[in-house]
């Protein structure tokens, strides 16, 4: 039997990788990809807990599944908007490197 903590650690590691990617990448698309990794890591956490919680309860409770499905849907909506914004920026400036896009300052 794999203890729950192993799954939670895996989720935490993936979340950290995503977080690091979101902070350090310069390409806006790459930042968005890293954010998707973060959301996916949360999903692992949810489903792992759902599994072990169902085992300890003795029946399959549904909260976790609905939560995971909602996360997937919300991630999809965010990606749609994010890519639309990136396209809109690109049309004006022909670049998606975030450090090149800098007209807002003091």
């Amino acid at each position, binding site marked *: 039997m794999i203890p729950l903590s192993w799954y939670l650690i895996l989720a935490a590691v993936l979340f950290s990788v995503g977080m690091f990617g979101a902070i350090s990448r310069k390409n806006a698309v790459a930042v968005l990809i890293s954010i998707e990794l973060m959301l996916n890591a949360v999903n692992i956490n*949810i489903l792992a807990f759902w599994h072990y919680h169902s085992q300890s309860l003795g029946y399959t409770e549904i909260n976790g599944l*609905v*939560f995971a499905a909602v996360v997937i849907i919300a991630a999809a*909506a965010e990606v749609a908007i994010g890519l639309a914004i990136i396209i809109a920026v690109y049309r004006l400036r022909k670049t998606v490197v*975030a450090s090149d896009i800098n007209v*807002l300052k003091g």
Partner: protein
Amino acid sequence: MTRMIDIYSILPVMIVAGWALLLLVVDLWIPRHRKGITALLAAIGLAIALGFVLASSGNTILGFNQMVVLDGFSSFMQVLFLVSGMVAVALAYDYIQRMNINHGEFYVLMMFSIAGMMLMSQAYNLLMVFLALELLSIPLYVLTGFARTRLESEEASLKYFLLGAFASGFVLYGTALIFSATGQLDFVGIAAVVTAGSANSVLFLIGAALLLVGFGFKIAAVPFQMWTPDVYQGAPTPVTAFMSVAVKAAGFAALMRVFLVLFPSLSEHLTPILWVMAALTMIVGNIVALAQNNIKRMLAYSAIAHAGYILMAFVAFGNGEVVGNTVAATLFYLVAYGLTSFGAWALVIVIEREYGKGILLDDLAGIGKHYPWLGVAMLVFMLSFAGVPLTMGFWGKFYLFRTAVQAGYIGLAIIGLLTSVASAYYYLRVVVYMFMKPGEPKLQINPWVSLVIGVAALAVLLLSLIPWTILELASRAVLLLQ
């Protein structure tokens, strides 16, 4: 199954969302040059919802399987959101025509966002909190970038989106950890597990901290405030005005709901963190505002500072005797700050002659001489921001300080007082430029915007003579606690 009472509990939200949906379709038949009709229809929809909110206030109902709650707190916040929405529509009507971004979908998206905020104030389940957060944020990402041909608007939208999505990742992870710690997602269940003592305390604490990070972003508290100046500057000014009042209010609504119901047991761990956040936010917001020349950026930093003042009162959330005052003082301050803020931003709209142009301090010169009433109104708003007596801003800060002192955080109150005094410099600098410097200002006066400025200025002045009325309303807006 869904009962009538469930529908009754979120009827205003349904009205706003459903009306926005219909407006989206009806807008197709409205010709390009008559988009004012869309604005009017949007305002009517918001007014109808407002009527329902007022009619149903005073009840306390849990609906939809205990996912939403209707209580005094939610009614108060919903009135705030709906009125903010109507003011934003009034401000936007002429602005988006002038800036050539006149699309009916502006109002539709704004209504979706308002529906999300209203749902946020009613959410009683962490899943609903997250969904309401997404529903209110996504239209705002788009509205920030609504001026598609302007790079600053798109850049602001990109920054807001990336940091906002990052923050909602944190909210989600915090929610997942609390789910892992307690096995429940709804507030009733979580509170029951916590009082029974069977929650995994490590996961619970980390989950709470992550939620604080996520919400801290929305209210622009330090160290999560980096996005605010750029986003406020780049977005269309009516959108900025709306964000500075309503999003902040929604963020604090979420913070208060979640922290007061779920985390009083964690207060000894969380209070020091909140103390530091409040102190830093007040200091950073006020000090950096001193250096700003662009009025939109200056008001952005001012908004950060004001979030700090509210946090100062919020630090006491774990203190059972004071928490009622915390909520009342916060709600009062959101009203005072909202009136003042909308007035100030309305004036920015008046002086903004082209997108992003005409909003430096120098552009204020001569207003006092040529448009004295505008000058006086802005004087009122600046004094209210600074917390000078005879304005609502003074009473707002007074109640916040009093709550902090009552809870024993004298040091924090002193920091607040000092930074507040320092802020008077940059607020009064605006007044100096308006009245003492000679110039020929070119203004875009529009009747609706002038109406907003006038009503806001009068409200800030006159309500300050009878502050106890608003405070009384705020005190009665109690949260349903477990």
